[in-house]
């Protein structure tokens, strides 16, 4: 088993605790007025993935998809349950994170590569390739904040797609950029997915999930609705969306 997730729950403590400062905290402790509300982001999720699985995670907004990816990549700890992951993880939860707007593109490439876990020799070797893939050869010494958003996502993607992981985690990263870029990025991602052993993939586009994935996990408001074969669950999901749309229309 490459990824084994059993009954995990993630609960946020919202309410006053986060916003108050030290003085307020002490005052409330004295008054015994510590009120915190709970927000259950994930409720009792369980699934297992083997070698070669491509899991698509679908659900409406606020379902807890990103939270689940954060738990699997180790950023968040669940409150309950067990997670066991075997393999090198590359989590691309947000393409633009790790870049610093003040530094130049060259410096940013090295910084982002370092954060992703590459070695310096590796980046030295792949540096021309990165510039070529993102089509930014002329902008090497410009500060990062001067690029357009399309250039930024192209650069971010170019660096990220050099990963050679066992487990790839993607959080809606294939939905940025213009049409040509999307085709290019999807093709690259498919190659990476073939080489790795397991991929977790969040998307709102059901045809894309049907095309790429063999298993699907359907979440809604933190609860697990279904986990299993891609086509059947995609059918159910589409039917569900139709039902909701019809209800709303009728209202």
């Amino acid at each position, binding site marked *: 088993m490459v990824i084994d997730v*059993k009954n995990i729950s993630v609960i946020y403590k919202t309410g006053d605790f986060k916003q108050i*400062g030290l003085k307020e905290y002490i005052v409330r402790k004295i008054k015994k007025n510590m009120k915190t509300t709970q927000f259950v982001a994930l409720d009792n*999720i369980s699934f297992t993935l083997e070698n070669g699985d491509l899991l698509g995670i679908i659900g409406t907004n606020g379902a807890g998809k990103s939270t689940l990816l954060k*738990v699997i990549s180790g950023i968040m700890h669940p409150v309950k349950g067990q*997670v066991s992951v075997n393999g090198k993880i590359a989590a691309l939860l947000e393409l633009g994170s790790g870049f610093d707007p003040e530094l130049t593109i060259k410096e940013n490439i090295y910084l982002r590569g370092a954060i992703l876990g590459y*070695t310096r020799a590796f980046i030295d070797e792949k540096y021309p390739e990165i510039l070529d893939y993102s089509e930014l050869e002329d902008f090497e010494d410009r500060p990062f904040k001067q690029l357009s958003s399309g250039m930024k996502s192209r650069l971010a993607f170019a660096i990220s797609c050099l990963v050679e992981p066992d487990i790839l985690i993607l959080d809606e990263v294939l939905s940025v950029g213009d049409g040509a870029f999307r085709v290019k990025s999807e093709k690259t991602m498919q190659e990476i997915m073939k080489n790795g052993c397991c991929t977790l993939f969040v998307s709102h586009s059901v045809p894309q999930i049907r095309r790429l994935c063999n298993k699907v996990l359907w979440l809604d408001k933190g609860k697990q609705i279904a*986990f299993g*074969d891609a086509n059947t669950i995609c059918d159910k999901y589409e039917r569900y969306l139709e039902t909701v749309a019809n209800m709303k229309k009728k209202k």
Partner: protein
Amino acid sequence: MSEFNVDDILAEFRDGSRKKPAPAESTPAPKTAKSIGATDIIKSIDAPKKEVPSATPVKETPTVPEKKIPAAPEKKTVTAPAEEYDDYKPTEPLFSIEQLRRIEAQRKEGFKAQSEAPAQKTPEVKAEKPAPVVEKPAVREAKPTVAEKPAVRKTDSAPARKPEPVAKKKPATIFGDIEEAEKKPKKEKAVVKINSNPFTSFTDTIKQNRFLFEELVKRDFKKKYKRTILGMLWSVISPFLTFLVQLFIFGYLFRRGDSNYVIYLLTGNLMFHFFSDTTNTGMFSLYSNAAVLSKINVSKSIFLLSSNVAGVFNFLLTLLVYFLFMIFTGVNFGPHLILMIYPIVCMTIFNIGISYILSALFVFFRDIQYLYSIATTLLMYLSAIFYYADSLPANIQFVFAFNPIYRYIAYMRQLVIDSIVPDLTSHLICLGFAVGALVIGYLFHKKTEKNFVYYY
């Protein structure tokens, strides 16, 4: 027209446990609290479907899989309804929280009540979900009470005619005695095992961490001094400006100092500035990198260490000017000066420990920065920087013993000004403060690390 509830619609799409509402007349969805209003759900979904003709194709397509599902409750065998999916695994909990509470309450009253009240429910429960109870003892680890309930019910429905023996002797279940589970309410701890990088060698890990470390230090330096005129000189100039002001006021106006006052004052200022500057930058290090830390799984210690190293570089720059002062004021240069490294290293470790604590606190409480600036000011007054420690009465001298910054400054002064190698006690005290701060800081950091992500 009834208000529709999205959760109710979802109820129809959950795996295996829900019935499709169209053919179901009276099969309830027994699992959750919605079971109370099961018929309401069915009515609310059924009624609008009849009104809107566009919904009829939606209504007709479920007939094919629906034929399979009503067959499941008729089977009494213990198998999962696996007709639809090959690798299907039922995952949702067996009972809702309301039901669990009811069960608890009933159990406390006694088994008599239990045998009467849910007698009607047992056939449904048994018929529809016998499988997960038996097939997945793993569920028990997360919720021990859940797994035992249906087992209890199975034994209870048999002696429903004789409630008395059940009340006296608690029946043994498949999963162990109920008494044991009652005595030890387990607090569930989440277990996270991420075995990343199983095959990379140790040297690769070191190389990769070193690269990240260097890049972060470079980034911090570039960012700090971009668009400033003097650039890096600022970190060197600022303690000297303080030194000059103090020299003027205490050395000249008050005439407090003796012949070595210049170097005495400068030592104190540089060491103290090293401490306060490094710990202040360390305090902000985690929170200012929140964007990276909340999206990428990077070790937090690297950010802390990189900011500390930047502080050490600044201090070493100030030391260059310090050497010039040493030459001008005629300090004895000799091999004993090599020991200057010792308080610098100790102080670095001390700073790292304090940074661990401060950075964790800063993530939780932003006020800490103001409290800490007051604390450093007080500490400065208590560290005998611009006055002599023996000019204070003897009963206050213990304050200096407990002030780690004073110990480091005193060590340095003894070494440089008096040209004496300090005794073993001083060495041990300096090391003790450093290691103590590091251990406490690291433990505190480890303990609160898991909660950072909620406060970024």
